[in-house]
């Protein structure tokens, strides 16, 4: 009997979480990167909260974006190198679902910790508590989008030697709308204005990427496995 779709999702998420637990030192790297980048700004610009408050939304968002990029390189590479991906393409199961499961785990391990840490980092940059919720929410929607976009790029470049720069050049331009709406939502929240507009757009982008992204990932991965 073949496993159902949910069973397949659970199996792959379970496998990747288990692998991550045995490599937790690699898993916390994006989070550490995020925290360190954001602490560099007060040191470089000025510790005055008034000035930091102005740049806080942008800094938090750019740091989150770069941190998300950091973990992408190793998203598919180990599975390609040990032959697992080849077996997956031959499993007779939808590759798009399997890659979406991997991407979801990737977000749980790299995106979610940043979402939880963001209010803390924001408060260090003078962000008022009233904006914490919106910051976390915008990052939750945004980093999930970044994971899907990044996974498409990672699937395309996984067979390229030293493809990490190419991956960044490919993915960062596509991620700009997410950055614009995300940083805008945080900025509006800090000034006590309505944030529904940019948040709705972030959610719409996420839905678009989740519904179409897996097919692009699977198509890109099939090309990468052939070579």
């Amino acid at each position: 009997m073949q496993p159902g779709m949910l069973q397949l999702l659970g199996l792959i998420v379970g496998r990747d979480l288990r692998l991550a637990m045995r490599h937790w030192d690699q898993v916390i790297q994006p989070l550490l990167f995020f925290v360190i980048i954001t602490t560099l700004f007060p040191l470089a610009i000025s510790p005055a909260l008034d000035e930091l408050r102005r740049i806080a939304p942008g800094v938090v968002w750019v740091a989150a974006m770069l941190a998300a990029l950091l973990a992408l390189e190793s998203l598919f590479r180990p599975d390609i190198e040990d032959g697992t991906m080849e077996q997956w393409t031959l499993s007779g199961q939808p590759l798009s679902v399997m890659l979406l499961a991997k991407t979801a785990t990737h977000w749980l391990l790299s995106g979610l910790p940043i979402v939880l840490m963001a209010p803390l980092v924001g408060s260090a940059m003078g962000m008022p508590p009233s904006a914490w919720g919106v910051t976390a929410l915008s990052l939750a929607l945004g980093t999930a989008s970044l994971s899907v976009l990044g996974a498409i790029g990672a699937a395309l470049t996984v067979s390229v030697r030293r493809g990490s720069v190419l991956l960044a050049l490919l993915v960062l331009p596509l991620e700009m709308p997410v950055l614009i709406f995300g940083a805008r939502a945080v900025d509006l929240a800090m000034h006590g204005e309505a944030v529904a507009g940019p948040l709705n757009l972030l959610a719409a982008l996420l839905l678009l990427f989740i519904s179409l992204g897996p097919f692009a990932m699977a198509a890109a991965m099939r090309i990468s496995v052939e070579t």
Partner: protein
Amino acid sequence: MSETPDSNPARLEVRSLHLWRGDRHLLRGVSLAVDAGELLQIMGPNGVGKTSLLRCIAGLLPLETGEVIWRGRNIERSREAYCQQLAYLAHLNALKSDLTALENLRFSVGTRRVVTTVQLHDMLVRMQLGACVDLPARSLSAGQKRRLAIARILLTQAPLWVLDEPITNLDAAGIALFEGCMAEHLAGGGLIVTAAHQQLLQGQPNVRTLELH
């Protein structure tokens, strides 16, 4: 559906397959046919295209000319149904070095079919890996890793096996064990296409050899 892929007898056919790798014309019109219960051994010197041929048969390489036909249908037209009946053993064992032998088997077979822990355990014992169930694959020897990969093929329960150098790193006992598994598979109506430097199941009537040169 008027035409299910299972309605036709299990038969694998390759018709006038050509393959270029860069400027090299690697496979020059290879044709072959394997019926239920038959083992086809592809032999030939290194670099002659054995692995490429097997990858074409598995559907991993796009064909430029020629076709691969399973149960009377081109595999490109019924890829999912074909994959479900195919077990492919590559050079790489597809093992995660941080997972134990049992976990590796559960996650690799689990994507194909639902298996119980008892079934996994029995298979590991059968492959003489009973002592390594909870050891990470990293600490297994090369031969033990190969046995683990073979365990996956057996548990997949696919009628068509495509095996690339299956006995690499196996010791004499391992080869004998694996030949027993192959004979059982053939007796049950399975098909095997393999690339090997050493003759397997020598002298059996249902074993044929294809020489590439």
